[in-house]
């Protein structure tokens, strides 16, 4: 690992001052950044340790819950209010990484984690995300783990987070601090598609930091499910995952929330399928139809065509679990 300067930030303002300088990166849990630094995928000159900032709080608000950017993945997943009111988030977090890693990983770091595409990780391979202009190794390579939605020829990597799939489904808002103050954006607009700039994962500016997320109250707690399909039963990234939340009254769906992981460069909200489900009776048949709608526009590559079948099956199964059909 390249030598770097270590700075321990005492305040949010000092963090913002520091990250506005080139070559400087925030470090939180370190579980993604240190890994990437050891491999030479990234090599910052300065690290700003933000773990002493007061951003660990999980606090009820008038209309929901606020979670600080430094709250640990393990703490959030076991928090009483999260478990009771937003079980989908708890389930998504517990499906990710390992207990040790969740004890280190933070909410902000989880959102900012980079893709696990092996061409991104291997510095001898071309990768437009790591080194713009070098090409995409995965496009004609081993692309079993890769995206089926929103791809462009420049990049077919997926965003690897489970937590983010849960937060996308839960209509969360991201709170961002910058030199000019705070701004808030919908979670679904935080991450971006590769387009012409696959090196840019999200809409956070270089001189901004995440300070927390807000989740609005909802009626999905009773009928929520996070289903993650992977190569082994635990401690593996998703091939496909689905976060499903349903608001059901007398067997009729009043509202639905659906998001998928492992299929796109960002957590993939299934807006059209959600709309379809409103007013439908709880039944395997309507779930299957919703899954078909969700798959419109999907496009597979040489080794990930199995996702075209796995994804709708996972959506259907997640909805069955969420609704209590299984």
């Amino acid at each position, binding site marked *: 690992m390249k030598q770097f300067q270590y700075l321990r930030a005492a305040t949010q303002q000092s963090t913002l001052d520091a990250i506005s300088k*080139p070559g400087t990166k925030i470090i939180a849990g370190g579980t993604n950044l240190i890994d990437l630094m050891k491999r030479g995928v990234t090599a910052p000159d300065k690290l700003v340790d933000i773990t002493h900032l007061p951003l660990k709080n999980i606090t009820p608000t008038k209309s929901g819950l606020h979670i600080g950017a430094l709250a640990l993945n393990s703490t959030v997943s076991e928090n009483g209010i999260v478990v009771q009111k937003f079980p989908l988030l708890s389930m998504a977090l517990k499906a990710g990484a390992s207990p040790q890693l969740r004890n280190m990983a933070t909410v902000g770091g989880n959102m900012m984690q980079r893709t696990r595409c092996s061409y991104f990780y291997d510095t001898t391979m071309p990768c437009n995300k790591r080194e713009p202009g070098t090409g995409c190794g995965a496009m004609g390579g081993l692309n079993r783990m890769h995206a089926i939605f929103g791809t462009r020829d420049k990049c077919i990597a997926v965003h690897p987070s489970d937590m983010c799939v849960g937060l996308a489904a839960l209509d969360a808002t991201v709170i961002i601090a910058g030199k000019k103050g705070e701004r808030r954006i919908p979670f679904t607009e935080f991450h971006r*598609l590769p387009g012409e*700039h696959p090196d840019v994962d999200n809409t956070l500016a270089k001189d901004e930091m995440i300070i927390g997320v807000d989740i609005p109250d909802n009626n999905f707690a009773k009928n929520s499910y996070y289903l993650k399909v992977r190569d082994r*039963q635990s401690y593996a990234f998703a091939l496909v995952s689905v976060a499903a939340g349903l608001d059901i009254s007398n067997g009729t769906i009043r509202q639905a929330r659906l998001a998928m992981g492992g299929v796109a460069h960002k957590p993939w909200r299934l807006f059209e399928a959600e709309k379809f489900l409103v007013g439908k009776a709880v039944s395997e048949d309507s779930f299957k139809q919703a899954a078909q709608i969700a798959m419109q526009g999907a496009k597979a590559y040489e080794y990930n065509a199995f996702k075209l079948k796995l994804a709708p099956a996972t959506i259907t199964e997640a909805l069955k679990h969420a609704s209590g059909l299984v």
Partner: protein
Amino acid sequence: MENKNAHSKPESELEEKDNSRRNFLKQSAFITAVALTPAPAVKAAAMHLDEKIAEAFEKVPVKLEVNGVMHNLSVEPRATLLDILREQIDLTGTKKGCDHGQCGACTVHVDGHRVNSCLTLGVMASGKKITTIEGLAKGEELHPMQEAFLKHDGFQCGYCTPGQIMSAVACIREGHANSETEIREYMSGNICRCGAYPNIVNAIQEVKSGGQIV
């Protein structure tokens, strides 16, 4: 079809070109490399920041309490807790398997919580209490989990074992050892190449049902 998933423009390019280090040093007020100090001292340090950070670029002072013993060390910021434990403090019980968070061989407790020491910077653990496999036994008396691993053959080659045991103790303390399924899920961060899993689960179940305080 309306697609709110469509990408928005990046607000800024990712990395700018590097600037001179001197320039950075001048401008980064209110941050100190050695800030386990109260706020007034931090502000005072900020006024002499050039020197402080220049120092920090080479080595930083790190205080670690490992298994009850205080160590005042001087380390490079890039040194991981794992490497410091093994190479500076000579506690080689904690193992390096993958060095990338993928195997759990390096599991230690920091302030009572299990973490992967291979992805922890030593400097970020400064001021914290570390427990390694060497710190579990009380003198000659093995920790109940160590006894149980011996009794149930919870290992073959033994390379993953220190990490397994540190994780197993945490698993019980966290309250995640209530069934075989739960144990398997909450021990999934520890890979055993020899496949001693069934025996590891048995060892944990025995300690759990024995009701001893771990």
